[in-house]
């Protein structure tokens, strides 16, 4: 289980996260929604042990990381058992997309090539896999960044808006692939604005507003929100679409 207890993070005079607690189960899909600028990405970075919260605790299975961390860094972080794909993707520009995927797993035993071939097929990456990142579209890079994370066979996968530049068909393929990861006992934590995905695939929906978790529960909270803030958020989205 990936758990956050009372995480607080902020800059002087500007709190970003306030007493945030949540759980991501292995084999479950947790969807984080909320308006822009409410600290969703910061929460993901904290869960990925890349930001140092001022207080609280993060537990990844048996490993506990009490905040603040000594020297500002977590001791022995469990990467890539816990890994993340960021909105900006962070593909290494001097390597081809194929090399980007294979670099982190090059010391692993056989079977990586087969795993890559399967991902190339699943994400339709055959045409551009040997291009460099700057020769690929944003949507293509999003698929590669996700493939790079999946090749690591993580137990917890944190995803930040990874479908923002994909067309409807690709989104459907990727989200269906992610749903399929439940069977591999991978815990998925995804920030998205795709409420349809949250309704159909999420085991847990977390709504954040103003640096706090305003409401969380099963996907049914999207039909019957208990808080006024979530109700407002859903109304705005419904009006916009």
């Amino acid at each position, binding site marked *: 289980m990936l758990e956050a207890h009372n995480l607080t993070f902020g800059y002087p005079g500007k709190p970003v996260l306030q007493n945030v607690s949540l759980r991501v189960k292995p084999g479950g899909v947790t969807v984080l929604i909320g308006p822009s600028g409410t600290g969703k990405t910061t929460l993901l970075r904290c869960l*990925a042990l*890349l930001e140092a919260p001022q207080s609280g605790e993060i537990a990844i299975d048996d490993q506990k990381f009490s905040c603040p961390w000594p020297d500002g860094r977590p001791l022995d*972080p469990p*990467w*890539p*058992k*816990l*890994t*993340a794909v*960021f909105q*900006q993707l*962070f*593909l*290494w*520009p*001097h390597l081809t997309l194929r090399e980007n995927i294979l*670099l*982190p797993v090059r010391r692993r035993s056989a079977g990586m090539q087969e795993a890559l071939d399967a991902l190339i097929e699943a994400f339709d990456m055959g045409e551009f896999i040997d291009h*460099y*990142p*700057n*020769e690929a579209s944003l949507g293509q890079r999003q698929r590669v960044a996700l493939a*790079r*994370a999946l090749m*690591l066979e993580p137990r917890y996968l944190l995803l930040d808006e990874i479908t923002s530049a994909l067309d409807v068909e690709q989104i459907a393929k990727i989200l269906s692939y992610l749903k399929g990861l439940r069977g591999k006992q991978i815990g998925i934590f995804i920030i998205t604005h795709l409420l349809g995905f949250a309704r159909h695939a999420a085991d847990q929906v977390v709504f954040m507003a103003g640096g706090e978790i305003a409401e969380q529960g099963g996907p049914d909270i999207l039909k019957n929100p208990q808080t006024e803030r979530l109700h407002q958020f859903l109304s705005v989205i419904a009006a916009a679409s």
Partner: protein
Amino acid sequence: MSVLDILINYHLAFLQGLQVTLELCLVIWSSGIVLGVTLGAIGANHPQSWGRFIRAMSFGFSAIPTLVVLFWLHYPAQAVFNVVIDPFYTASLTLSLVNIFAVGEMVRQAAMDFPAQYIVAGRVCGLGMRDIVTKIQLPILFRQLLPGLLVLQVGMLHATLFASLISVEEIFRVSQRINSTIYRPVEIYTALALFFLLVCLPINLLAAYLKERYTRDLSER
């Protein structure tokens, strides 16, 4: 007397001058690259101490003309310390210092400005620091620094001409000496230009090869 005649008649003198120029270059280039890169890496890791020192020295050497430093080390410094040092060593030291701090500052700046997100991506992918440095940081920095470093080294080759002014028998001084004997400035300096073209050609070819092999446009389309 044509350029060819001059080259034939004085080829031994020219070759000796060229040899001194190339020896100077060897010292300047090797010390600049090895010590400069090392210093730049140290400066990036210790920005408050070494970083500031490299920055200050690099600023000093770029602000004060190389010729002034060379003359200062050749005349007043030696008089103050009451020593006589072979001009070749003085020129080597001066130009090496200029090159070391120029390279050091270039490397320090590039390392400091290295996009942290590429390191973050490596960390969450489970790569160790050694892999991150050797497989991600150094290759990107190398590609980024290569064109500037090669231009700087060609500039240092040109700066070896200053050594002639403190009596180092490099190729420019040899040319001047021949000219004072036969007074054929057009032909002699044309011959000198040819020598520099011949020395710079392989460097430029190497630069073009390395650029073609290792650097490419990373901007997004």
